[in-house]
């Protein structure tokens, strides 16, 4: 049974490898020709060769993708494809450019159909002779009752909870296993936490020598601009830029990205075709370098860039922009880069929801938006809470996006104010020269995040259904 599929996967593998090497060779030759070419006429065929090479490479990647997914499906189905699945895979193979496979599968399907036509019993026979060994739900004629087999949540092969090492009640060796981690955590997690809080209350801490001029509370009033330092230094930027910028990022990007991610996840979950590929596309922003993509966005939002060209505007978004205009690309970038993780979490949550709820809603003829708000969202509430908490914490700590987009704390370079500064940016900027102020800003952030997370937990108690 599996033979035709095995043959076509071997053909495919050979084909994909040939395509890969041919594509690489063509790209190489084409680029060499491009480099050697002098005139416009000579460049054209060289560029054509490169293009063909790239297309070949793309096709070979398609082949590899196809091969892996097809093999997985074969293993899952144990080689038993019915005619419907074979048609689906035949068409998919055509789409992915796997002509040999498509021909093999479709011919096999044709044979199978012919066999079925021959073996098929008459309609009347089928009605009575049909026997289903296991019923998911139906009418049990023998015992005269309706049978419904409900899926349980913990259908696992092994009991996995509550297992302990029964043999040893008090195993001192455990501490040896834990020793490296405990030492590292103590040095790089616990001690710094205590020390940072301590520094926040010291006056004029010098990190190189570890000296300071006594304890004080003025660091907090200093960063908030209420009091000046002894040497007359005044801090205006923390209140004017860092706090409002961070607040804006938090209250705008978190709801937008969460709602958008939820909608995308629900849509992705409802479609049949290309689900996996689209899922992968929406995950792409996660596997990028934050600085690199920030630089790309600053090119896209350049005053002579593609956004202004498409919308026929001449707004200055990035360099030389004012504070609130520059927020637009920043927030766009933050939403763009934070969506993939949320979609992934929501999708895994959606796949865990029992289908019966939707069937019940269908029987009640509930409209789609009501299904979304009354079934999906409440059942997804643990995931939504998790996403909200992690993304609020993440948004409070926004830093690399600013560096990537603006290459500094402000839109006007070193000359202007640091008008795009966030709280974390402020901490890093003052780390060296003004360690006490940086530490008190860190404590400030810590308290805000703790309070915020606490409020979210309290507010969620009534609304989250575990």
């Amino acid at each position: 049974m599996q033979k035709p599929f095995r043959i076509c996967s071997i053909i495919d593998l050979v084909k994909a490898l040939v395509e890969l090497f041919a594509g690489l060779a063509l790209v190489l030759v084409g680029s060499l020709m491009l480099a050697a070419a002098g005139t416009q006429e000579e460049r054209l065929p060289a560029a054509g060769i490169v293009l063909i090479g790239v297309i070949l490479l793309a096709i070979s990647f398609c082949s590899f993708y196809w091969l892996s997914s097809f093999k997985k499906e074969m293993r899952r189905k144990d080689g038993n494809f019915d005619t419907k699945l074979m048609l689906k895979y035949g068409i998919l193979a055509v789409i992915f450019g796997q002509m040999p496979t498509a021909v093999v599968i479709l011919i096999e399907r044709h044979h199978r159909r012919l066999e079925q036509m021959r073996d098929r019993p008459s309609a009347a026979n089928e009605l009575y002779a049909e026997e289903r060994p296991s019923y998911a739900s139906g009418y049990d004629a023998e015992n005269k009752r309706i049978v419904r087999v409900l899926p349980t949540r913990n259908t696992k092969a092994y009991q996995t909870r509550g297992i302990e090492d029964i043999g040893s009640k008090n195993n001192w060796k455990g501490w040896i296993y834990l020793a490296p981690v405990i030492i590292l955590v103590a040095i790089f997690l616990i001690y710094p936490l205590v020390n940072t809080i301590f520094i926040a209350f010291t006056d004029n801490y010098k990190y190189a020598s570890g000296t300071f001029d006594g304890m004080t509370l003025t660091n907090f009033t200093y960063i908030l601009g209420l009091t000046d330092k002894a040497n007359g230094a005044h801090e205006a930027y923390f209140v004017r830029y860092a706090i409002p910028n961070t607040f804006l990022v938090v209250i705008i990007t978190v709801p937008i990205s969460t709602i958008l991610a939820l909608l995308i996840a629900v849509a992705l979950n409802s479609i049949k075709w290309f689900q996996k590929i689209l899922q992968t596309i929406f995950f792409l922003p996660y596997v990028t370098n934050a600085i690199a993509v920030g630089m790309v966005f600053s090119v896209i939002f350049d005053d002579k860039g593609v956004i202004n060209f498409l919308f026929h505007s001449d707004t200055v978004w990035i360099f030389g922009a004012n504070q609130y205009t520059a927020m637009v690309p920043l927030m766009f970038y933050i939403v763009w880069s934070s969506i993939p993780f949320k979609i992934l979490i929501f999708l895994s949550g959606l796949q865990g929801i029992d289908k019966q709820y939707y069937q019940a809603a269908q029987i009640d003829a509930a409209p789609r938006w009501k299904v979304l708000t009354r079934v999906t969202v409440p059942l997804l509430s643990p995931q939504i809470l998790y996403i909200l908490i992690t993304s609020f914490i993440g948004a409070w700590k926004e830093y690399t996006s600013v560096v990537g987009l603006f290459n500094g704390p402000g839109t006007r370079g070193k000359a202007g104010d640091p008008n795009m500064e966030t709280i974390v940016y402020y901490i890093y900027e003052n780390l060296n020269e003004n360690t006490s102020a940086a530490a008190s800003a860190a404590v400030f952030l810590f308290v805000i995040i703790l309070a915020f997370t606490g409020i979210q937990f309290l507010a969620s108690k009534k609304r989250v259904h575990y």
Partner: protein
Amino acid sequence: MASNNQTTKTYIDFKSVKISDNIVLSLEEAGKTVDAIKRTEKVTRIITTVLTYLFILFLAVIVVFPFYWMIITSLKQNDEIRDTVQTFFPTIVMWSNYVHVFQVFDFTNYMFNTIVVAIFSTLGTLLTTILAAFAFARLKFGGRDAVFAIFLMTMMIPGEMMVISNYITVASFGWLGKGQTRIDAYLAMIVPFWTSVFYIYLLRQNFKQIPNELYLAAKVDGKSDWSFLWKVMVPLAAPTLISITILKFMGTWNSYVWPNLVTNNSDYRLISNGLRSSSFVDIDAGITEYGYQMAATVAVTVPLFLLFIFFRKYIMKGVGRAGIKG
């Protein structure tokens, strides 16, 4: 549907009834034939499917667009990039941008640094994580649960709290300052990240799912805890370990703040720092050459993409469970 005849009661054969075949009649549908209702249902289903695809494809285009723009900008001439009319494909493909970038941007050096730091911090993390997760999941000793609770609580603390003091700690180890050697810089970038509470938590959950019978069988065969850990548990938890490795690698590839703080020679820094601090200014024109800049970003992004293509399953699974970057 059901007959009113009381004497001959008929049962519906549930076997052949599917929910999608059921037609629900509501008040506003009174007077319509079943066929008409079925038809309208079919039409609405097709319309919603089309709308869903349009919505998803529109957003997918937005998601992909920055990557597309990055690649084509990296192949454009500077004049074309700054032209008033933006082109969606380069009129002249400038492979020379890449040649220039590899001369200006010391890609191999930054790449080397990043890979060294990634490998050693990953190895350290794996070792400490495996040992701790084993102790938490399998061994029983006084104070275990208290220590685990403290560990979990530290996950709530923002990393920025720790950076200040860690900076001071690393400085007091002598890894910072004027006479910093390459080894010092590597140590400063590697050692503070040798432990991750989250990965310990993740691996502990995985270890707990390994059935008790295996442990007891190993005990009967006279195996010690140590050899049971390395011969049985680690191979069984390999997928999680691979996920941790890849996420850690991605984290190093992305790390910007800490390497920037603890190195004072730009030769010792990592790839993100190199990318941001390299200047792609054209000397003649005095303005930033976006073509060069984008070629450099492509060079930084491609290795991550390759990693993603080959380990898509592990990355997506790991992120789904882990939910943090690095």
